[in-house]
């Protein structure tokens, strides 16, 4: 650095000194501007981060405020009443909650074993050149918008089930004592079972891709040690990989469950929209999200709207708990890996 410039830098540091060159003043101004911009940028990013927090609390607060009229009118019985009658303004959330839980349960019962088996295939059996294409294909399945599953479920899948699986279930399991009521009634095509199956297909990619990631994180030495004492591939997966990855897999399953609980469009098409609780899985029903999607724009009167918002609040609270538990578990396994 040449002596003249070095002097000017010193001048900036001691601005009160006698020799104040024009250059030094502009430098000081430029530095001030940079410092200000720096602080402003930092505060902007911080504000945005806090904004994300406010978003979630905003959702929570607005839902609580919106559902107050309904909750005040019906109190706790809102959760336990089966009736849903817009004309007499009597609302109970039980059928919707039941439908949401039941369809998600059916979905998880199918998606979890299948997803785990696919993850097993991808991590242990699949030839390396096939691994990426299959992984991408499974993730594309996750990217297909839910309305596509809905329209496909309504026009293709439901009629198909009506002619094949449902009569089969009615004829075989419909006569078995104890579980017979589950498979009673005519094959409508649409209904709880169909919604559960469509959800299973939707959730499958989430369960698969997280299980695969968690399986891949199992240290190679553990597997090698198991192979070394003569375990078969299945035994390695069953007794080494699965126990080690348990927390992560549960986290992935809960994440899938969170999706299934809140899924709207795919279910709305095939659920049948009946505010009743039928014992049969083949009967139409409704879910929280389907009820809101179907009725919100047509809801007249504050109480009706408020009851629907209260349904939304219930859904939000349920999914929040499930997702928070899922994230907590996944975070635990991430910490172990990292």
């Amino acid at each position: 650095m040449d002596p003249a410039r070095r002097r000017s830098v010193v001048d900036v540091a001691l601005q009160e000194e006698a020799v104040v060159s024009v250059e030094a003043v502009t430098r000081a101004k430029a530095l001030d501007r940079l410092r200000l911009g720096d602080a402003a940028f930092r505060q902007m990013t911080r504000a945005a981060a806090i904004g994300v927090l406010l978003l979630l609390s905003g959702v929570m607060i607005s839902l609580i405020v919106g559902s107050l009229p309904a909750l005040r009118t019906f109190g706790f019985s809102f959760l336990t009443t089966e009736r849903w009658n817009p004309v007499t303004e009597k609302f109970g959330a039980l059928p919707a909650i039941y439908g949401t839980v039941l369809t998600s349960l059916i979905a998880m019962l199918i998606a979890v074993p299948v997803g785990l088996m696919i993850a097993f295939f991808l991590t242990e059996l699949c030839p390396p050149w096939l691994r990426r294409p299959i992984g991408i294909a499974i993730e594309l399945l996750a990217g297909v918008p839910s309305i596509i599953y809905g329209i496909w479920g309504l026009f293709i899948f439901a009629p198909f089930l009506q002619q094949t699986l449902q009569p089969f279930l009615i004829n075989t399991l419909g006569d078995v004592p104890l579980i017979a009521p589950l498979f009673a009634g005519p094959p409508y095509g649409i209904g709880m079972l169909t919604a559960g199956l469509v959800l299973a297909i939707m959730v499958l990619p989430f369960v698969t891709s997280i299980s695969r990631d968690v399986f891949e994180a199992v240290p190679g030495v553990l597997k090698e040690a198991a192979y070394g004492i003569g375990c078969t591939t299945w035994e390695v997966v069953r007794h080494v990989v699965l126990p080690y990855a348990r927390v992560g897999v549960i986290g992935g399953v809960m994440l899938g469950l969170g999706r299934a609980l809140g899924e709207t469009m795919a279910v709305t098409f095939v659920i049948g929209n009946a505010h009743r609780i039928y014992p049969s899985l083949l009967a139409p029903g409704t879910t929280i999200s389907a009820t809101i999607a179907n009725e919100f724009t047509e809801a007249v009167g504050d109480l009706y709207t408020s009851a629907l918002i209260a349904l939304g609040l219930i859904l939000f609270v349920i999914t929040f708990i499930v997702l928070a538990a899922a994230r907590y578990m996944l975070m635990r396994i991430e910490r172990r890996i990292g």
Partner: protein
Amino acid sequence: MTARYAARRRRNAVAMALSVGATVFGLGWLVLILGVLLWKGFGGLSPAVFTQMTPPPGSSGGLLNPIIGSLILTALAVAIGTPIGILAGTYMAEYGRYGRLTSVVRFINDILLSAPSIVVGLFIYEVMVAPMGHFSGLAGGVALAMLVIPVVVRTTEDMLTLVPNALREAATSIGLPRSLTITRICYRAARAGMVTGVLLAVARISGETAPLLFTSLNNQFWSTNLNAPMASLPVVIFQFALSPYKDWQSLAWTGALIITLTVLALSITARALIPSGRQS
């Protein structure tokens, strides 16, 4: 001993067969759904779809107004959501990487990432539609923006964390202030990843129906007015598919095909852009 060994071998073979079967089953759905979409939607794909308005029942028409509406809503959502998402992600990766605020925001953001989108619709209805007194495209755009933000936050944070610290140190050592280091150096290094995040967000929202049902509603006519109800492809598909009219149903299939192809193209592009160091 040999009998037991044979049993173990057998069990192994069964498990392997099951896992191959599960994979074929899983991929089968993708093939099936795409196949049906092509078969049902391709026939209706004609220039009229892109040049004509949605018809009343019983006459022919196209999907021009919902396509334009979807484009406007998506652009609006990206325009609102991306800056907020990038700024928040920047804070988490650059300023408060190990801070408490960051871990809280990360947790909340992950929950927002998979929160039910219909609840977002309810929220926007409560805070925008009800006070304004009418449905509007603006409300729809904001609702979609709420789905864009978590995706962008997540990818921005991940990608900035991957930028080597040596770059930041080099920038600081030549006297760059922190904000310029981030905007001129880190953003540039993480650009591909951040673009991926935006693409993934667009893919996510372009098929979203639930948050639009009671924010932007629907519009049978040509409208680019953000202050009025606006048609969008997913909502039109919803309405047309559930209608009893054959013309509407076949338009719904065509719309479904357009959306799916767009989403798949976006996700494949996004995947191709991910820097190779991240592929695991």
